[in-house]
């Protein structure tokens, strides 16, 4: 990832953060913007998770990775601690590969 991309992301992010303090007296956020943004966040995160769990390049990623992510999803839904979720995802994928499942 080139430095210029990091700076671009940082700049855009900072602009979002500064908009409120700068514009509060002049602009009001439209009603419902909050809910729409929350929903868009959920859609993006789930889609990122799904594409990266299932695909590698333009093809299927194999069974081990989505299996690890599925285990992580179940644990996350049960509100397991974060380290448990991450380690379970890695361990599931690693063990399946060790067993010859790819």
């Amino acid at each position, binding site marked *: 990832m080139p430095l210029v991309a990091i700076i671009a992301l940082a700049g855009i*992010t900072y602009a979002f953060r500064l908009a409120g303090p700068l514009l509060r007296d002049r602009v009001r956020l439209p009603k419902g913007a909050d809910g729409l943004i929350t929903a868009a966040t959920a859609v993006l995160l789930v889609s990122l998770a799904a594409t990266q769990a299932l695909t590698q390049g333009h093809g299927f990623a194999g069974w081990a990775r989505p299996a690890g992510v599925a285990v992580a999803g179940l644990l996350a839904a049960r509100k397991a601690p974060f380290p448990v979720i991450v380690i379970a995802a890695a361990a599931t994928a690693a063990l399946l590969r060790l067993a010859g499942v790819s």
Partner: protein
Amino acid sequence: MRRPRRTSATSGPASPFPATTPLLRDVSLICVADGIVAASFGAISVAGGLPWWVPVAMSLLVFAGGAQFAATSVVLAGGSPVAAVAAGALLNTRLAPYGFTVASITGRNWWTRLAGAQLTTDESVAFALRETDEGQARRAFWTCGAILYAAWNVCVVLGVLAGTAIRNTAAFGLDATFPAVLLALALPTIRDQRTRIASGAGAAIAVALTPVLPAGLPVLTSLAGLPLLARAAPKRRNGGED
């Protein structure tokens, strides 16, 4: 990444002890939890093949966990930097309403506004919102923001150091950790049926288009699932019609 509305429920009855003690205790707990996320970020990024300074610079400058994971994972999956920036930026749009929420807390000075903006996160806003007194809210925001900024960046560096020791990422199953983290971040934001439907549809669109679109782009097409929210919206208010 915690949402402000959820933490407000955790503020207990008035304590006889000085207000600083529970604040510092709660901030420390958040820092431990987020520190683990930060260390994972640093470790997975370098283990995936990025140079050490990428996660470090991103944490210092962007300072937003979800966007950092999203942008990095797009790049590691072979996506273009433009797609990575777009995914990260879209996730960070939620910081704009936060900014309006805490605008009165970061003050009238231009330099406290500039510094306060960088420290605006899910966590610092949540800590500010659970206080009723404005002075307390200000103290909670700055305490959480400043300590979390320090902890987050230190832990990313520690994670980078650990990650450079890992050679074979596939054997350790590390490729499963990025999507796992993203899923763990997403689940608390899905509170109703409509968001669930929109997310499922968006994910299906993105996965289906992955074989044909350049890497990084399919994720952005998932936003096509959002109109499902609007379609389902009147249904709830009018008691269902189809």
